[in-house]
């Protein structure tokens, strides 16, 4: 399946992109699986998305945890902890 990735704020700048269409390998069905795919790119991806780093994930515009399941066409956003108000 293919998902739509979105990046915001500091992570958008670090990764050098606002969005990306990503075909997932077979067996990649959860947020945790997706993070493994992205960490495997190395460099900033491995550093920023390392376990214990502070970032948030939203699936289809709802905050999600590592167990959240992905579906064809899911909109997955990765961003730093929020600082509005």
């Amino acid at each position: 399946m293919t998902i739509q990735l979105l990046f915001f704020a500091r992570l958008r700048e670090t990764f050098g992109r606002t969005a990306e269409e990503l075909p997932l390998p077979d067996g990649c069905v959860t947020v945790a699986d997706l993070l493994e795919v992205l960490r495997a790119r190395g460099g900033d991806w491995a550093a920023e998305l390392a376990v214990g780093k502070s970032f948030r994930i939203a699936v289809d515009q709802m905050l999600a945890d590592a167990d959240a399941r992905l579906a064809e066409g899911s909109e997955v956003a990765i961003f730093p902890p929020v600082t509005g108000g």
Partner: protein
Amino acid sequence: MAFIHIAVQQGDFDLTTELARQPDAVHACGAQASFIGRVRNDPAAAMPLSAMTLEHYPGMTERVLAELAERAVARFGLLAVSVVHRVGRLVPGEQIVLVLTAAPHRQAALQAVEFLMDYLKSVAPFWKCEEHAAARCWVQAKATDEAALARWQA
């Protein structure tokens, strides 16, 4: 049905306009309470703040704010809630956010404003990037923002 108004916008807002926007045909509303957040400069800082840019996640932001407004209505028995949040580049002194509540009595209206601001700061997808002269940096989230939610979760 409570009145809910959510706006995410570049332009400024006006408190008087937003107060008047909340309908109260039967005069059941004994209290309107508001909070306005502004861009703050720290006069003691080594490098004064020249501006800040607010980024957000279009779509999710509006959804999260509407959900928080509905929770506040249910929890505090509000008659009206307005949340207006600006995005884009703002300079010190400019207004950033308005939370405005209406209820039969003041305690509910005042508490709901605090509830909404505490949650907005922890879950609404906005990010601030500060400019200090030529330097720019993303504001780090504060642990105290998450901790502030504890009092609403007891």
